């Protein structure tokens, strides 16, 4: 009996990879296992080669493996591409006839396309057949697979459900009858976390739960999933989801809605974010709360539209011309994506600034089963003048100079005076000015004073093993999980990690105090420049020994990172 199983399903775009991935993930979750899945897909709707990889374990897992135990290729081409990704003991499941293969050799040959045809007369049922095969191989009850298929396909009608169940049954029994699956049988699962979510869904849910009532964006991979999640529940929560004509419109719409006192959000990827630069500056100048998600993909320009990278750190740090306070969060996990999105709304409103959530394709598209959200954490804290408070004000000044730098924010119609909001340099009343003294006061209000307060709001870095370590690995965003798991596997007390869920502003004391004992420091980043290393040097004076960098458009896997860490500490 084994404790972990890695499965890869691969085929052409359009073969239903997402559906089968969901069916399999859910089946194992229902059977009591922990799931981590991630996706690798091409920028096309039909053809090419995509895969969906699922890691199943009796314990919590957080990162992808390099190689898999079971490969289910849906085409001969997919078999050719992915065969080399099998573990030594691994097996590829092959339809000999369809793939035109003479000799089965090390493959497990099963006529799954025939079974699909028998079950429903359509190739698409190969997905349910595969689920049946996998259940038999891993020792999961057929009932569980069939229940999952019923749940997922119930909206498509009874016939489709029946065909899918039949398909799973055929695959299941044929496997039981013809293959000795002893080496893939999983130890019995216990109860595992209930909610199966991706990093884009948790940003969407985070926004909804933070009271976001206006979402505008221009579709762009890999951020579109956030808009889909919000749109799915727009009616239920009274949210307006407006697809903008371009990213410039999207960010300006969100600023317009937010200026009206309605919590609002926009998401995009690097190219779209670049177009939003002036809008981010507008939010800084007009002191309008703004929440922007940047789901990174490899650039420059169009780059790798469907793949992953962390090369927009410099871009978001420099986003918006001029000087103003802003905050950048870099969630490392599916859960952190939820809580930091909620926090982004609170901080944006409290300080009347733009807040950027920096995620990436890998985190957005990977899924895990997680525990119930703690809805008391980063709960909604609205911050504007209520109609009651506004009544006491006679002559309202939108940009009233205060010791904190933050002016009480009134909302149109909720105050018995008019409000002037201005992108030019302005007086306290919000009218255009060219006065040098006012300029100094306003710059200090928007930048120095707010930055000072934001320094106090800095989120503590997440550390592991830090007490006795002499080597510390530093990361931000989606590298967190794979790094932590790598160190757990390596299990060396001298090696530690520090993850920055907040990359701007940087509180240097809080970082330095944690790394002062280290003899060697390395950053681990999904980019070519070592952008985090440069940020740390600029902001804290800390110089790292080196960086482990990956920029092939793919995420670090547990195995590859363990190798790289081991090599790094040897040298």
């Amino acid at each position: 009996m084994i404790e972990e199983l890695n499965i890869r399903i691969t085929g052409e775009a359009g073969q239903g990879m997402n559906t089968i991935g969901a069916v399999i993930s859910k089946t194992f979750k229902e059977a009591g296992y922990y799931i981590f899945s991630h996706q690798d897909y091409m920028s096309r709707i039909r053809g090419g080669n995509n895969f969906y990889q699922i890691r199943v374990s009796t314990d919590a897992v957080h990162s992808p493996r390099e190689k898999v135990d079971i490969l289910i290729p849906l085409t001969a081409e997919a078999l050719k591409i992915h065969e080399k990704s099998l573990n030594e003991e691994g097996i590829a499941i092959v339809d000999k006839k369809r793939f035109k293969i003479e000799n089965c050799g090390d493959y497990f040959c099963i006529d799954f396309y025939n079974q699909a045809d028998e079950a429903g007369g359509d190739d698409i049922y190969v997905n349910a057949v595969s689920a049946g095969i996998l259940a038999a191989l891993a020792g999961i009850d057929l009932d569980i697979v069939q229940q999952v298929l019923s749940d997922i396909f119930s909206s498509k009608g009874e016939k489709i459900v029946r065909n899918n169940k039949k398909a799973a049954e055929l695959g299941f029994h044929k496997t039981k009858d013809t293959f000795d699956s002893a080496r893939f049988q999983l130890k019995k699962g216990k109860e595992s976390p209930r909610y199966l979510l991706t990093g884009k869904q948790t940003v969407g849910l985070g926004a909804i739960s933070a009271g976001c009532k206006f979402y505008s964006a221009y579709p762009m991979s890999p951020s579109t999933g956030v808009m889909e999640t919000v749109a799915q529940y727009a009616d239920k929560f009274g949210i307006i989801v407006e697809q903008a004509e371009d990213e410039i419109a999207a960010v300006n719409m969100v600023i317009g809605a937010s200026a009206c006192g309605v919590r609002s959000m926009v998401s995009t990827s690097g190219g779209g974010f670049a177009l939003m630069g002036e809008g981010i500056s507008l939010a800084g100048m007009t002191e309008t709360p703004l929440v922007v998600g940047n789901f990174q993909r490899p650039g420059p320009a169009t780059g790798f539209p469907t793949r992953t990278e962390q090369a927009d750190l410099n871009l978001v740090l420099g986003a918006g011309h001029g000087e103003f306070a802003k905050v950048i969060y870099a969630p490392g996990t599916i859960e952190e994506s939820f809580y930091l999105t909620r926090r982004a709304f609170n901080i944006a409103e409290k300080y009347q600034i733009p807040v950027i959530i920096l995620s990436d394709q890998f985190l957005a598209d990977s899924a895990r089963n997680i525990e119930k959200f703690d809805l008391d954490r980063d709960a909604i804290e609205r911050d504007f003048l209520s109609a009651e408070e506004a009544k006491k004000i006679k002559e309202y000044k939108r940009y009233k100079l205060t010791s904190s730098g933050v002016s009480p924010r009134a909302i149109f119609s909720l105050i018995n005076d008019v409000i002037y909001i201005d992108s030019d340099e302005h007086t306290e009343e919000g009218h255009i000015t060219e006065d040098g003294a006012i300029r100094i006061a306003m710059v200090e209000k928007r930048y120095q004073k707010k930055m000072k307060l934001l320094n106090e709001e800095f989120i503590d870095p997440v550390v592991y093993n830090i007490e006795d370590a002499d080597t510390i690995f530093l990361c931000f965003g989606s590298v967190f999980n794979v790094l932590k798991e790598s160190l757990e596997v390596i299990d060396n007390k001298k090696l530690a990690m520090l993850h920055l869920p907040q990359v701007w502003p940087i509180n240097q004391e809080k970082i330095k105090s944690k790394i002062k004992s280290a003899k060697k420091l390395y950053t681990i980043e999904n980019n070519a420049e070592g952008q985090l290393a440069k940020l740390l040097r600029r902001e804290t004076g800390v110089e790292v020994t080196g960086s482990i960098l990956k920029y092939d458009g793919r995420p670090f896997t547990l195995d590859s990172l363990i190798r790289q860490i081991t090599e790094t500490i040897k040298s």
Partner: protein
Amino acid sequence: MQPEDFKSNDPIAWCPGCGNFGILTAMQKALSSLNKDPKDILLVSGIGQAAKLPHYIKVNCFNGLHGRALPVAAAAKMVNPELTVLVSTGDGDCYGEGGNHFLHNIRRNIDITVIVHNNQIYGLTKGQASPTTDQGYNTKIQREGVILNRFNSLALAIAAGCGFVARGFSRQTEDLAELIVKAVKHPGFSLVEVMQPCVSFNKVNTYDWYAERLYRVEEDNSFNPKDMQSALTRSFEWGEKIPLGLIYQSEDKTYQERIGKDKNPFLNQDNNAIEKIMEDFV
């Protein structure tokens, strides 16, 4: 309320004799006759001389980025449909930098009123060609004269489905105020383009130039602004005769009617308990 109640105390930064003064007078007159509290009116602008206008009026103001007044105004109306939302923009701001937003907000038929100060020149940047500058007009940049076609905003608006298309003249403030009131009352996107001489940089399209050419379309009894074909024909008139007044009007469902009239995010901000949907993710 009186037009004086809509005057702000911000000093005016336009050139003496600027066509914008007439628009300002007409706006104050129009807003005062709407019977609305200034706190429930929002005037949005981008950048340019036209974009300064909201500062001179006592209603709510959002003076944003060049070309981006429309997305701000549209979203404000979407989240708070109770606000009366107007945009003060220019030929460069609306048709040049913001051209894409002009097209797509007409498609949305969002219930806002867009007043375009059209002086056929870039004033604030000192006299370069705008999208509406006539061919052949010489500037420091277009030294051999403008070679691009003049942007026909009215024809384009009608073709894109704008349900209220009008042209005013900044010297005729009474008529202009009336047009603005009609535009605000029109349900859906309304466009009022105002011919407005730039006394500093446009030496051709002067007060007299316009006065000689502009004529009221309603003086022609056979003209029906509800007939799209005749409206389009008039919208192409330029040169010797330039039509003035309500050129085209039609009714269509507004954005708010299309998404469901009950949607009012502003009044509905406490509905956010996600517990009720979490079972969708098991």
